[in-house]
């Protein structure tokens, strides 16, 4: 059971830049969004060809988690994620594949990503996290719910640390703000401090 929890580490991915604890870790100007994801992921040099088969939302989530969890203990680490659009970006692709009778070719590899929580599943697979998992959909990051839910996991003993945050992607717009809540650190896990991450 974790009594005092801290926001140990933060990773923000937006505007073709990856920032970890306020330090820029990767940025690219010239690349398209697709190239940005690829290059930013390759930067860490992981041997993980599955990354390139994921939909865009999962790529964003796995990329941000890769930077956040680099060098961290993965012990008993739960996931609490949220976004606004769910899997809408991929939903639109699946709809396009079934819209017209003459060109009706639903793709299993697209369809499987038409669920918001798949990106959490991809992070779990990538890091072997057989732990508590929840995905919420909300207009803005549900600060109070994410805070309470995370505190519940830690205080009830259902997790020792929690990867929390926002992974939003629709068409050209994307933003990931992930943070690691654990017994280590100096910035207390409070609703106020979470709010500051989104300011």
């Amino acid at each position: 059971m974790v009594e005092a929890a801290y926001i140990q580490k933060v990773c923000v991915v937006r505007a073709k830049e990856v920032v970890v604890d306020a330090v820029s870790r990767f940025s690219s100007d010239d690349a398209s969004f697709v190239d940005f994801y690829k290059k930013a992921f390759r930067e860490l040099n992981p041997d993980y060809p599955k990354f390139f088969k994921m939909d865009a939302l999962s790529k964003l989530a796995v990329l941000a988690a890769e930077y956040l969890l680099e060098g961290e203990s993965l012990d008993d680490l739960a996931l609490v994620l949220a976004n606004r659009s769910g899997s809408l970006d991929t939903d639109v692709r699946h709809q396009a594949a079934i819209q017209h009778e003459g060109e009706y070719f639903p793709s299993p590899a697209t369809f499987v990503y038409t669920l918001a929580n798949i990106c959490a599943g991809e992070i779990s697979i990538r890091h072997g996290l057989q732990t508590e998992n929840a995905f919420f959909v909300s207009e803005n990051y549900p600060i109070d719910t994410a805070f309470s839910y995370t505190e519940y996991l830690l205080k009830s003993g259902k997790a020792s640390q929690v990867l929390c945050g926002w992974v939003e992607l629709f068409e050209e717009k994307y933003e990931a703000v992930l943070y690691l809540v654990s017994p280590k650190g100096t910035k207390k896990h409070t609703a106020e401090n979470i709010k500051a991450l989104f300011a």
Partner: protein
Amino acid sequence: MSFGGAVYIHDFNCFTPLGKDADANWAALVAGYGAIKPRKIGFLDEVYASQIGTSIAEVDEAVGEGRLAYMLSQAMAPILDKHRPTPRTALVLASTKGEIGYLEKGEKKEAELYRLAKKIAAKAGIRTEPIVVSHACVSGVLAINAAKRLIQMNQYDEAIVLAGDELSAFVLSGFQAFQALSPFPCKPFDADRAGVSLGEASACLFLSREPSMFTIRGEGAINDANHISGPSRTGEGLFRSIGTALHEAKWEAGAIEFIAAHGTATVYNDEMESIAFNRLGLSGVPINSLKGYYGHTLGASGLLETVITLKSMQEGILLPTLGFERLGTSQPLNVLGGVTEKKVQRVLKTASGFGGSNAAILIEKIW
């Protein structure tokens, strides 16, 4: 007592192809009616699925609020009548695809789930920001778990837990591409099972700290971390989800008297469940899957099946698994063959889904 104090389940209801409320559903289930029939949906000519009848569709057109919103408000209506929302009442909505039909018309933003939740909350007079759990086929069970947890953390005093998903060409086409649709009404746990039948439903229940007939003793929702569509070969996530729920309840597995399983009738899912239950020593516990009656109602299924199981405990009658004839899993299971009169106090409800997700909840009837 579990961390955060006891949370109780009060009233519950559902709205499905088998009936407009919980009582009507119960009567149909006991009589052995199933809702899965051949239907023409989208470009699929003959597909076995369960769908709410046309008479109801006419009603919703008159109401003009959208079909799923109508289904949800119907399930919620008797709960709202009894429990007027206070400033500390949460609405937790579980859905996988919400109003996905908007995409066909090119209205992308309208399909966003949070919009549906806000619409429902406003109409119901709920003043807190609605919470949407969208976690594949475990959404319904996970929504109950999440509501319980947030009450235990004192974010709310009480919660309306609501779940719904519609039958759609969107989802049917995907399951077809996955070659996961059964060519006959689905047969959970059966040797000849050949995939899912899809369906639609909505369900609702009310949670609070005020004592009531049912209480949640423990719960968990743990990922397989194995594959995004294939169930774990060892049932690891389900095994652990039940394990964490038992730990919270301080129960031995032997305390469980009945299992309301997920039982989708795909070859791999039902096999995975049999392995997980066997690992926990639950092979002899009476078990059912309600998918044979309703089909797989996705994000609604976990809540709908919980509602029917609560009714089952009240009535002292356990329901069989429609479509089941001969066990077809590698591990033994005690799948009920017929309507069985038996009073049970302690039940386990489980769900599993895409993304490696699993959820389990232990409910006790205390009077």
